[in-house]
């Protein structure tokens, strides 16, 4: 019975996060439009898009892996989200965070990416592996500063357990990692730009270069699942960052406010910059954020 309640909570938590994530996507579209001087689509546009794509009468599939690719992707998003305790102290939003720690979350991010890459690969379209090659390469580079930041956090709180990390940041705002180890936060936030794949790091989808990269063959419900995942996955990443660096959240409202502002950083940068070439992007991540990440570790060990 206990497990059924757990699952029920998880379902609630996932639905909330998905809705939040998709809405956030709509809001961001709106912000982009305003930056461009447009009205932009309605905030609920992502939901309509998902309904429409699900509503397609036919779909094509290239094989079993193509079929499972989006499933992997969504499972990756779900897993990433479900292994993070979303709201500190909340039972409903604790998810399955007792199954593992920060490392589990970091590695579960790969689960979806790998599955999606396989599915897209079976599509047989040349743009898919091109996009994936870019994506994997970029991922490897932004994971470096991110992992350094995470290590700095682990040193600082002497734990890899997210709940413990959040607990340590409670109380004054000065307890946040943002203030106790700003270097780690800077490094991680730059990595987040890469993770969110907004410009200048939008190498993977890059509509004008390799339209639109990996999901080029994805259609109908496959695409719909990917769209749903985008909402959830964005929410998961933002929650993770909030927990690690911005003191976590004690209720839903704080979570929404904090994650919105975290996301805003990516959005502002994305709205302001054109796209990097792949090797420029890789070099960028391996250079400045990595140095900052190393500084963050030195900072936390020696100061």
């Amino acid at each position, binding site marked *: 019975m206990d497990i059924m309640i757990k699952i029920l909570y998880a379902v609630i938590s996932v639905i909330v996060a998905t809705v939040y994530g998709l809405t956030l996507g709509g809001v961001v579209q709106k912000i982009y439009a305003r930056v461009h001087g447009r009205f*932009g689509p309605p905030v609920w546009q992502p939901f*309509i898009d998902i309904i*429409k794509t699900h509503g397609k*009468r036919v779909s094509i599939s290239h094989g079993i892996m193509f079929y499972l690719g989006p499933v992997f992707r969504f499972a990756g998003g779900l897993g990433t989200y479900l292994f993070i305790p979303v709201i500190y102290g909340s039972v409903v939003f604790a998810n399955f965070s007792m199954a593992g720690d920060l490392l589990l979350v970091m590695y579960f991010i790969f689960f979806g990416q790998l599955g999606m890459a396989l599915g897209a690969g079976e599509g047989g379209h040349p743009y898919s592996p091109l996009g994936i090659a870019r994506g994997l390469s970029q991922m490897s580079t932004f994971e470096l500063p991110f992992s350094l930041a995470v290590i700095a956090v682990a040193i600082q709180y002497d734990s890899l357990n997210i709940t413990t990390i959040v607990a340590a940041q409670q109380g004054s705002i000065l307890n946040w990692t943002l203030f106790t180890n700003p270097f780690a936060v800077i490094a991680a936030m730059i990595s987040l730009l890469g993770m969110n794949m907004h410009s200048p790091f939008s190498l993977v989808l890059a509509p004008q270069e390799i*339209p639109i990269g990996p999901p*080029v063959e994805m259609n109908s419900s496959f*695409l719909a699942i990917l769209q749903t995942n985008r909402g959830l996955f964005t929410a998961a990443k933002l929650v993770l960052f909030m927990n690690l660096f911005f003191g976590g959240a004690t209720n839903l409202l704080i979570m929404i406010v904090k994650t919105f502002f975290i996301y805003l950083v990516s959005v502002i940068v994305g709205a302001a910059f054109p796209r990097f070439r792949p090797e420029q992007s890789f070099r960028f991540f391996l250079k400045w954020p990595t140095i900052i990440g190393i500084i963050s570790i030195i900072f936390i060990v020696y100061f």
Partner: protein
Amino acid sequence: MDKKNIKKIEKEMKLANEGLPEKERSLFSDVRPTSVTPLNKYLEKFLNWARAESLWFLGFGTGCGAIELRPLMTSRYDVFRYGIAPRPTPRQSSVFIIGGYASMKTVKRIVRSYEQMQGPKFVIALGSCTINGGMYYDSYNTINRIDHYIPVDVYIAGCMPRPESLIAGFNKLKEKIKAGECDGMNKYAENFDWYKKNQKRVIKDWNMPDFNW
């Protein structure tokens, strides 16, 4: 059509794919398209609403009219607010805008792209050339009526129609979709042989399968 029939058609009515060399035939699907009937009237109504509110058009410029598509996405016209957005791949698009005259060469690509779109799919024919050939009515290299080759839902006349007309066309399309009048996908499947005959008449170097899945 019920499921049994579909299976039967799929089994018995394989496409010949005669335009392909022998060794390439195994690389292309030879399944014949079939029409799909909606499951439920009310659900279909809801879905039609969603389809109408989220029109992703294929960003292919197939003629001179494509120049009029670009302003749609600028701040001045901002079609995004109507749930209209460009999409770089036919797999994910639901609206195909025929951008004016279609030469023999372009028709081949139009057919291919149209067939690769997943139904329900809609076609907006832009400009006079798509209706009766327009100023190219007697060209040896241009087709006169696009609706002989693919089903068209909305025509926007003019040479060229302004972006405002395009938006109007989109709105017309929305209305028609919501009314459940846009069934080009099924029409194409049901009259497949007629369309194919017309297409093959103008496209001489037919080196693709008979239906591009």
